[in-house]
């Protein structure tokens, strides 16, 4: 169960460049660390993040083991019409976490 925090402005003027922030709780275990008994701690990371607006992908990122735990992404989009933003994280085992936010263009 991952906790997700999204920061999307509720409203924007048409043509505005808006900032979007997405934070997810995840260990992002790199696979390079060892435990107190010398055993390798298995890799467990998110590998893909995608953000779409009304079905159109506006931002995506591939994650690698050097990304810190609880990754925070900040990116921008041009607000042109009202609609819903969908956020999706996928881990190396195919498990996904989704959240959404609505944007109203006035």
């Amino acid at each position, binding site marked *: *169960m991952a*906790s997700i*925090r999204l*920061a999307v402005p509720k409203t924007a003027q048409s043509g505005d460049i808006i900032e979007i922030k997405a934070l*997810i*709780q995840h260990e992002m275990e790199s696979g390079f660390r060892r435990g107190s008994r010398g055993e390798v701690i298995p890799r467990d990371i998110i590998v893909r993040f995608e953000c779409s607006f009304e079905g159109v992908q506006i931002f995506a990122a591939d994650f690698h083991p050097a990304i810190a*735990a609880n990754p*925070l992404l900040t990116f921008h989009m041009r607000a042109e019409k009202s609609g819903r933003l969908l956020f999706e994280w996928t881990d190396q085992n195919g498990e996904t976490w989704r959240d959404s936010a609505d944007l109203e263009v006035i």
Partner: protein
Amino acid sequence: MIRASLLLCVFAISACQEAAQPSQQSALTIEEIRSGYTFLTAETQALQDDPFANPGLLWVDRGAELFQSTIAGEASCASCHEEGLHGVAATYPAVDESSGVLLNLEGRINQCRTQHQSLDALAYESEELLALTAYIFNQSHGLPANVDISGPAEAAYQRGYDYFQTRRGQFNLSCQHCHTENWGKQLRGDTISQGHGNGFPAYRLEWQSLGSLQRRLRDCDTGVRAEPLPFGDPRYIDVELYLAARSQGLALESPAVRR
């Protein structure tokens, strides 16, 4: 003869230094009390202050959900504590009236679960217990720690004080040696803080996670190569009480970000 006078000289100098060292070194004065926040880099301070990106807020969010949710048909926390628990965390650790035992907030949450909600106690450092403590501590954000060290808590406070003053581990250091007598100095790459617990549960960059004050105490004990006490050990709860009183009104910052 020269040697003897040199020796005398050294004695005289060290005696002077002894005299010059103020006795208040054994305790922090109110004027010099500083939160661990002030020892952080500007970037880490900015992360703590960011009302969105402070990663500790992930646990606060989760705690807010857990507080409202019913588990296995039992009453939720919110069904009794409708107004939330504003200012409550600042009074912990506190002596439980019915049992006479000193409880920290983790212990109090588990007491509620087992006695009033017919639920199992949560393990220390489990995501659920961290989330609930972070959520409840966050409702005392900005308030000073306000623990009662009189009456039944007096003995616990004294035990906590003794633990803090006692040398331990292969390094033979007490908490006092670093955090009262040498704070502000460099310990390898780090600046030694005053050792206040006012940011906990805190997100430590070293842990890449939120953790309790007891986890931090275990790290300190391990750091001086002492055997850390088990989580929830009453001796650590005594130390938590002493630390809260020692912080003399520093505002609570949980979830703080620490190195």
